[in-house]
């Protein structure tokens, strides 16, 4: 049986949605849904180099080779390898905080970015901040392992504002979820 990996969706957020239940409880509930739907294809993810990650410079994308870890208001900041949109860090928010009045979307697209300081890959949830007009500041458009809309959770063109009052797109954050 294939089990859902909550990390890919930001386990904390799922937990919050489930009303503070434990990760194990959460997974169990999702597991039920999956088990109940065996007729659907449940394929292993081929997240880039998920199995045996090669973090040598030769294995790094252009973005990863030139990324920096000091200024999160620049498109070259390491976590932005697959971001698309206005940086919340330029719009009154933070790297994982929405600006005042905006609501973080509980669901998001994800990316796998390499931190040049330790050479390790991390799972990043690009959580849109929603319900306010487009900030239009520090617009970035990362493309590492970004795919198309038939694989929604790896596509960064979609307005990722679900479960919020209004889906208007304001800006994007890059939340560290864990090691990839």
């Amino acid at each position, binding site marked *: 049986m294939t089990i859902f990996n909550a990390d890919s969706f930001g386990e904390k957020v799922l937990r919050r949605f489930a009303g503070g239940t434990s990760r194990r409880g959460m997974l169990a509930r999702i597991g039920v849904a999956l088990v109940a739907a065996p007729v*659907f*294809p449940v*394929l292993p*993810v*081929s*997240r*880039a180099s998920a199995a045996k990650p090669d973090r040598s410079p*030769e*294995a*790094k*994308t*252009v*973005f990863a*080779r030139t990324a920096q870890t000091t200024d999160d208001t620049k498109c070259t900041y390491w976590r932005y390898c697959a971001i698309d949109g206005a940086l919340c860090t330029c719009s009154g928010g933070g790297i994982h905080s929405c600006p005042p009045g905006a609501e973080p979307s509980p*669901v998001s697209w994800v990316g796998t970015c390499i931190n040049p300081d330790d050479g390790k890959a991390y799972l990043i949830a690009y959580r849109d901040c929603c*319900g*306010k*007009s*487009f900030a*239009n500041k520090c*617009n970035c*458009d990362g*493309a*590492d*392992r*970004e*795919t*198309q*809309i*038939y*694989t*929604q959770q*790896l*596509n960064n*063109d*979609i*307005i990722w*504002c*679900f479960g919020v*009052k*209004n*889906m*208007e*797109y304001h800006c994007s954050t890059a939340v560290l979820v864990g090691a990839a």
Partner: protein
Amino acid sequence: MKSAAQFQFPGSGLSAAVRLACATALGALALTATPALAGPASVEPEESGTTTLAAPKPSWAYLSRGFVLPGTAIYDTSTGKYLAQIEVPILGDLAIDPEGKHYYVAETAWTRRLHGTRQDYVSVYDAATLKLEGDIDMPGRMLVGGREHNFVLSADGKTGYVYNFSPVSSVNILDLAKRKFVKSFELPGCADLIPNTAVGLAALCSDGSIAAINLTGGKVDITRSEPFFSATADPIFDNVQYDKAKNEVVMITYTGLIYTAKLGAKPTASTPFSIQEAAGLRKGETKPLDLNWYPGGRDQPIALHRASGHLYVLMHKGEFWSQKNGGEEIWDVDLAAHKVVKRMVIKGHPSVINVTQESAPKLTLVAEGDGDGEGAGLAGTFTVIDAATGEIKHTVSDAGSGLIQTLP
């Protein structure tokens, strides 16, 4: 001087214009102390009116202005002239009636701009007057920009299909003749709706297959092809090109593999060929540090001229995962011959390409430019190029930065 603000016009049954006349007159201005009708105007006053549009032509290009300014501009590629603007909002999707009688716009609005109640609907516009004829309400739609396959019409133009992601993946079916929402069905794991003659629809799926969606019976029947591409390692660009006459779809992957799939009840994909190899170069690879030519563009990297079977592809130099980069060249691919027959150097790194379906096709490009307003969709330059000669026929600056559509 003192005055009573509670005054009511005796002529309160008058129209707004007359009330304005009164109101401002009372307020003082635009009055003369000279007698009225002192002399007739020496010039005949002009009438105000509204122009109308001709029926849609194969030479027309429909250019979405992008992410900041609403509106899709219609240009005639023969003259370079701006004709009118269709009211497509930001993130709205335009579908053109194959009969040329209507424009359909799938859109989403909240009753009070950024709050209130969400509404999803298709607005119906008369193609000659661009007047709104009505809305068709529906349960929802995906909010994303720059996609040609989230709102498609059947070949006869009588049925509309709107992709929804709520975040459950589904499709709304609309009867455009009766202007009614018919029903929704879930479409797990697939997106990018493609018309599919006689069957209903097709869609791209995340397992690397194409699904045929049979809507002819009471039950929605979804049949997938064998998986033939990797949705994560080497994805197919969303904006695949559909050829109605052949019921075929032409696709390209990030590395540059070109596939043709025959649709129908059970789709089958061809063996792909490499666009780089078709140009006498080495095949595109997914690994880093491998410098090559790759297809790319923010929204629309390929355009198919159906009658001649030529595919025009925006190509740029770089490494893999540069799929959003704009083009440095247009490669003209003869699909039957598996050959790149021409490479045209272009300026401004356009991220959108389309081609008119005329017998002498014209290429249309949108490049956002690097100036002020970059990323804001205001600095986009629209270029029309003769596909045969590569000659630039028209250039329009500040045109927009979104999708280009042409007649279906």
